[in-house]
């Protein structure tokens, strides 16, 4: 039941034959994302419930955008887990960005557990309309 809302990274690792392992023995989830293309660039929205702005790391390296978030588990002292529907763990996901992005203008914001990354296209990559002249 825990895996229904969040997907475990394990499945992805198995599919892609990733040989590396994390040193920390925690569960890592693949966050759900929305990606939309605007004329200006790309906007990525990722659901990272439990993560604050200090817990998230976004990097763009060699056209790979990685989102990593560490979520600290809250200890519920004096309470017994009675019914669990979701697990708590880190988040990790990476995308290959084909568009040419202006790295200096990338913006990332965190609000209410949702990460919003705006990746503006580099000026050179913006479409240009070429006027056709009458010959």
């Amino acid at each position, binding site marked *: *039941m*825990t895996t*229904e*809302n969040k997907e475990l990274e394990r499945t992805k690792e198995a599919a892609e034959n990733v040989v590396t392992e994390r040193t920390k023995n925690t*569960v890592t989830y693949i966050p*759900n*994302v*929305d*990606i*939309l*293309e*605007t*004329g200006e660039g*790309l906007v990525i*929205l990722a*659901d*990272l*419930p*439990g*993560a*604050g702005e200090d817990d998230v790391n976004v990097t763009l390296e060699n056209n790979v955008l990685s989102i990593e978030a560490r979520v600290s588990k809250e200890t*519920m002292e*004096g*309470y*017994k*887990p*009675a*019914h*669990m*529907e*979701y*697990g708590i763990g880190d988040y990790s996901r990476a995308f290959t960005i084909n568009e040419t992005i202006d790295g200096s203008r990338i913006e990332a914001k965190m*609000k*209410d*557990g*949702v990460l919003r990354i705006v990746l503006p296209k580099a000026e050179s990559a913006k479409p240009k309309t070429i006027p056709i002249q009458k010959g």
Partner: protein
Amino acid sequence: MLRTMRPGLRWDPWREMERLESEMGSLFSGLNRPRAAKFPPMNVFAGEADVVITSEIPGIDLADIDLSLTGDTLTIKGSRKPQELGEGQAWHRRERGSGSFYRTIQLPFTVDGSKVEADYTKGILKIKLPRAEADKPRKISIKTA
């Protein structure tokens, strides 16, 4: 993984209640999943004098959540607004669900409605429900004749 952490054969009132209310929970309309997951997912922690419910609902406006309590039944109603597509914009991926949701949870005891605390941080809704004073177990002293 969490499955093993669950109290295995112990009586779980929520699991039973969940079975009963399973038909009621509405799901995200935009979710393309082979298995329908409940939204929002909830974790329930039981303490001596209260119950704490945490729920992952990232990116909603507090004005869009409605919590109500009737006796020992807690209802969460709300909606998550979809990301609107502007002119000249196109989706590459759309995995985050949106739409309205509705869930009810029956608690194992009556709750003192005036002392319920709810808090929403980092996309997690946390509700603390203290047991009503009148519902707390009382020790009955037996007098000798």
